[in-house]
């Protein structure tokens, strides 16, 4: 009976497709299927990268296609690295990345930890918390711009109610000191749920028996948190930090919508500077060099970080 079933199964299994197409091996067929994707990837990812590397050594400007393109060697890179405004933009970016990651990680993990308690209605609250993340950045940017409006914005009235400062004096987007925080608040509001989701996955992956063993050993809740919860969720937290770090290093839409880099250049992050150079000043070669520098910086930092993450996972 068993043999007959096996025979039937063998008969039902189709012969490798390659055998039906003369002259094409299984490997060849695999390449045939993969090649469109590879070609597409080369066309839209790899070629532009190499083209940008080439342009970064030239004085090419996209708005002057007829002009002779000169090779400038490393001149664009030297100018960027010696440009004080670029370094200020990098510092501004680092400031945003640091504070957004710190706030999103702390709040996101705390929320995940609370949700993981599985209190009554936790599914409903999880959904509510996730709403900001599901909105389009354009919607969020405009929505918060109205909230921050000093004359009619709700945010200004809430701050005014709490502090007693007149609402028209709460100028979140116009004030040099407050504008960076206005963006950090919005980004944190929008992306903390994302960190929460990853942390929640981490917390749910910790086997229950470890806590049961700790209970048997009479470990306190605090001890369980420090010795079990946090170390075991750490790779997930680090993963969330990696994702948010890369995303926030490239932060553009929120800043563009809320402040456009202002007031002055207070919130001009690297991506805004890059956009101004590339698509407003039309310094294509120069901005390509800047893009390459940013790419190398993110790639390098992410690599170092991933190595650290792997070590944590192996522990």
């Amino acid at each position, binding site marked *: 009976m068993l043999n007959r079933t096996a025979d039937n199964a063998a008969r039902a299994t189709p012969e490798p497709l390659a055998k039906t197409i003369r002259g094409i091996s299984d490997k060849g067929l695999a390449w045939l299927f993969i090649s469109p994707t590879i070609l597409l990837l080369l066309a839209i990812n790899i070629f532009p990268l190499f083209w940008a590397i080439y342009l970064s050594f030239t004085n090419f400007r996209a708005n002057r296609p007829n002009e002779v393109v000169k090779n400038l060697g490393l001149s664009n890179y030297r100018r960027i690295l010696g440009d004080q405004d670029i370094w200020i933009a990098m510092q501004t970016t680092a400031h945003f990345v640091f504070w957004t990651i710190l706030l999103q990680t702390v709040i996101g993990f705390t929320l995940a930890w609370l949700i993981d308690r599985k209190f009554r209605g936790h599914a409903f609250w999880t959904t509510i918390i996730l709403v900001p993340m599901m909105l389009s950045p354009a919607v969020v940017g405009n929505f918060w711009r109205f909230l921050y409006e000093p004359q009619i914005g709700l945010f200004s009235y809430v701050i005014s109610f709490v502090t007693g400062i007149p609402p028209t004096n709460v100028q979140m987007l116009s004030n040099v000191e407050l504008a960076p925080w206005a963006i950090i608040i919005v980004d944190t509001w929008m992306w903390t749920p994302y960190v929460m989701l990853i942390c929640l996955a981490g917390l749910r992956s910790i086997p229950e028996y470890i806590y049961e063993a700790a209970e048997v050993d009479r470990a306190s809740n605090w001890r369980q948190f420090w010795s079990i919860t946090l170390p075991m969720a750490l790779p997930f937290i680090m993963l969330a930090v990696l994702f948010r770090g890369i995303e926030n290093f490239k932060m553009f839409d929120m800043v563009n919508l809320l402040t456009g880099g202002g*007031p002055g250049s207070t919130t001009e992050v690297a991506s805004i500077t890059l956009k101004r150079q590339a698509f407003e000043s039309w310094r294509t070669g120069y901005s390509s060099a800047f893009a390459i520098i940013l790419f190398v910086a993110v790639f390098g930092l992410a690599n170092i970080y991933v190595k650290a993450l792997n070590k944590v996972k192996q522990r």
Partner: protein
Amino acid sequence: MKSTLKLALGLASAITASTAVSNAAHAEDLTLCWAAWDPANALVELSKDFTKETGIGMKFEFVPWTNYADRFLNELNSHGKLCDLIIGDSQWIGGAAENGHYVKLNDFFDKEKISMDDFVPATVVGYSEWPKNSPNYWALPAMGDVVGWTYRKDWFSRPELQKEFKEKYGWDLAAPTTFDQLKQIAEFFQKRQIDGKTVYGASIYTERGSEGITMGAMDVLYSFGFQYENPKKPYEMDGFVNSEKSVKGLEFYKALYDCCTPPGASNSYMGEGVDAFKSGQVAMHMNFAFTWPGLQKDENVGGDKIGYFVNPKGPDGDQFAQLGGQGISVVSYSDKQESALKYIKWFANKDVQAKWWSLGGYSCLNSVVKDPKFPSSQPYAQAFLDSMAIVKDFWAEPSYAPLLQASQKRFHDYVVAGQGSAKDALDGLVKDWTQVFQDDGKM
């Protein structure tokens, strides 16, 4: 069978013929590209006459001001065929001419006897010529525009406010003729309660992203003595851009921003200015003249409630205003250049220009603006005429974009963010502009 065949053939021929006719009609359609704003709607209305006269259909591609330059410069740079005609910004002329985006119109003007002497001289220099002040024409002046001011005539005429103002400043509250007066009026209205509502002094340009703060600051700086370069030595900017007079002008603009603008007005340009004025927030409002027809018609602030004045004089009595507006050009990549030139010829016509003004566009034709009836044709007509007589424009160099970005940054850093001094900002601007011209091989 024969009759069935005949019927089928007849139907097929009819369908083919109608398709051909329809294609022929569409082939003649012209696409005109411009910014999405009130004058564009007036142009749509006006162009219906062109279609009636010539049978050439008109399609329009209007893009909001915030994307106007990006969208159409990309189109031109990529040699796109979307636009047959384009009403491009005045600063584009240099780049568009040197990069071959626009058709040179000299021969066409000669052939059709269109004379640039028939147009307001400032608009010819500003919208048509490259190199400047040379008889090389790349556009027909289409939409005259200039930065000027509107004010709340109804507030200014209140006896109690007039009395209080006179006691405080010693002169009658009226449209200012100097910047000192403008600032006094702005201070007077700042945070004043009018009809139970807090109002503010003035709405001025502070926008960072495109060109706003530059247009606003320059509007003031010119009258304080700012010059782009040494008149005797092109591209020599040190001592001119950052002269003592320029520094005072920029300091004045910052003082006006600090003392007298509505809260949160740190990124305000044309739209935000109109909103501030229409909502009754401000006593005075800096904006391009194209906004005036709309404001005049506004139920809340228009009619008898609104007044217009020319950009005031600086400390030494100099008086200039920032030029806006555009010329209309034929795109060199268009396949329908002949029809596009027909449109230009039609648009240059005296009667068409008169109708253009009546619909809300700003004609640049002398016969329209010098008509004795023109100053009284609209409440703002005289202010427009006076303003157009004192215009200056930003660099129209092929590299105008990086030049503009530099001034946007330097001005915003100082005026809005309060970083450094006016001297620092203008010294920085000289440095930035020098770098741009060096990159271009002009220095």
